[in-house]
């Protein structure tokens, strides 16, 4: 077995077809995770009686265990729960009809939610309290103050962390191969084992991931420059 440089390109081209799946998993998990993150962060910041401690427990559990265990638990546990409920209520729905990729979506969203919650929380904490007080003093309701005053500033502050989380989820999406979703990593495995050229295939996959990561980073840097415009100081 010799290294075949030309195969790297062949593998690269074949792997391109799997990029949408990877990006889709990343996009779904990041956006659903962001929503979960905002809700749980607010529960914790406002110390909502029962929901606050539940959020804390959720975050501790998820952050203390590997992403792979979440995926495996959802993959094996969710069908049992669904089929149980389905049998109980007499629905005509069976877990077998759930597409594989849904397990990846659900599990990665839950994972992302916990990490995003910490990002959102630190972003909200970074906003000066005076901003909220000023919003109240001109007669805004809490919801208005949060939406118009606190969130935009918190978003600007937490953008770098959000980008790191998104990159983390992009890299984490490689785990989807364990539930037989064909993302870039799984495709690389297929290409590698059918041609018996493992190194070349994984090198191509690494290059794609590297490119995607740098791309996310560049886009965030540009977005950050835009979103920080209000904050440049000076007089003009």
């Amino acid at each position, binding site marked *: *077995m*010799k*290294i075949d440089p030309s195969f790297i390109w062949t593998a690269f081209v074949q792997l391109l077809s799997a990029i949408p799946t990877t990006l889709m998993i990343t996009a779904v998990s990041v956006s659903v995770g962001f929503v979960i993150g905002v809700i749980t962060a607010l529960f914790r*910041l*406002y110390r909502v009686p029962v929901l606050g401690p539940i959020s804390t427990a959720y975050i*501790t*559990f998820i*952050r*203390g*265990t*590997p992403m*792979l*265990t979440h995926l*495996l*638990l959802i993959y*094996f*546990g969710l*069908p*049992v729960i669904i*089929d149980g409920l389905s049998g109980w209520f007499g629905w005509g729905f069976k*877990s*077998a009809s*759930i597409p594989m990729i849904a397990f990846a979506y659900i599990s990665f969203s839950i994972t992302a939610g916990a990490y995003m919650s910490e990002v959102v929380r*630190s972003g*909200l*904490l*970074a*906003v*000066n*309290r*005076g901003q*909220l007080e000023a919003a109240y003093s001109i007669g805004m309701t809490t919801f208005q103050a949060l939406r118009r005053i*606190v969130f935009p500033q918190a978003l600007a502050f937490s953008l*770098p962390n959000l*980008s*790191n*989380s*998104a*990159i*983390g989820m*992009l*890299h*984490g999406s*490689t*785990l989807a191969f364990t539930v037989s979703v064909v993302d870039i*990593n799984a495709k*690389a*495995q297929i290409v*590698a084992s059918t041609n018996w050229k*493992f*190194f070349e295939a*994984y*090198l191509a*996959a*690494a290059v794609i*991931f*590297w490119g995607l*990561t*740098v791309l996310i*980073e560049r886009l965030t840097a540009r977005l950050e420059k835009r979103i920080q415009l209000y904050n440049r100081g000076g007089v003009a």
Partner: protein
Amino acid sequence: MFVGAPFDFSFVISAFSKLWATLGVTLLIVGGSLLTGMIVGFLIAFPRLYRIPVLEQFSKVYVSFFRGTPILIQLFLFYYGLPELLKLVHLDISRAPVLFFVILTYGLHTGAFMSEMIRASVTAVDRGQVEAAYAIGMKGHQAFTRIVLPQALAVAVPVFSNMVIALLKDTSLAFTLGVMELTGKAQTLGALTQHFIEAYLALAFIYLVVSFTLEKLLRAAERRLLKHEQPDGTARRRFRIERKPSLRGMFAGIGAEKGGAKL
């Protein structure tokens, strides 16, 4: 879709005790890669700290690559690629144990993050500190070991603690190369008994216990190192007003956590 045997809680406990026995392998991977990562981290950080021309560029690309690609891809890349590459220089390591490749990959991966941590924490120490040390007559190495190192260490510990826990969780991927660590063992147990959910619940619980313990230990070390910092005694507020720039806060700005290629 395959569904195993009905849920049986007693199996969670028996799986837990069986999994506990393989904790050593996981901790070996963590320890081995931390050690490798520390050495690699220093080697990679130095050219960037001292601005050594060509090596500096190499360090940048190294860090960017290891932070910009998933660890899973890196594992496969090294496992399949390294023997091939070394064959070109007539070195046969295809018979080396899998654990060697696993620790090497995790070590190189951690090294990239470690180098960023070292770089950030050394630059976080105020230059005036070194100058002051010189002013009272300390020598170069004295100024470094007595003044810079303790302060840099204090900045580095929270980042280090995050890194160790991230590494612990990442080791769950070693099963893909057939290493019998916690996750690999849990999968085997699940497949043998068809009690998948119970085995994975026990697995999650072990990871939780270990990461919790590690965090507590490292937090204690951090508190010890940050003794010289004044604690801000103001009561916690919902949205903080101004915060004194503490070392904890500085670490948030370092951004040496997971993710990010920074090329």
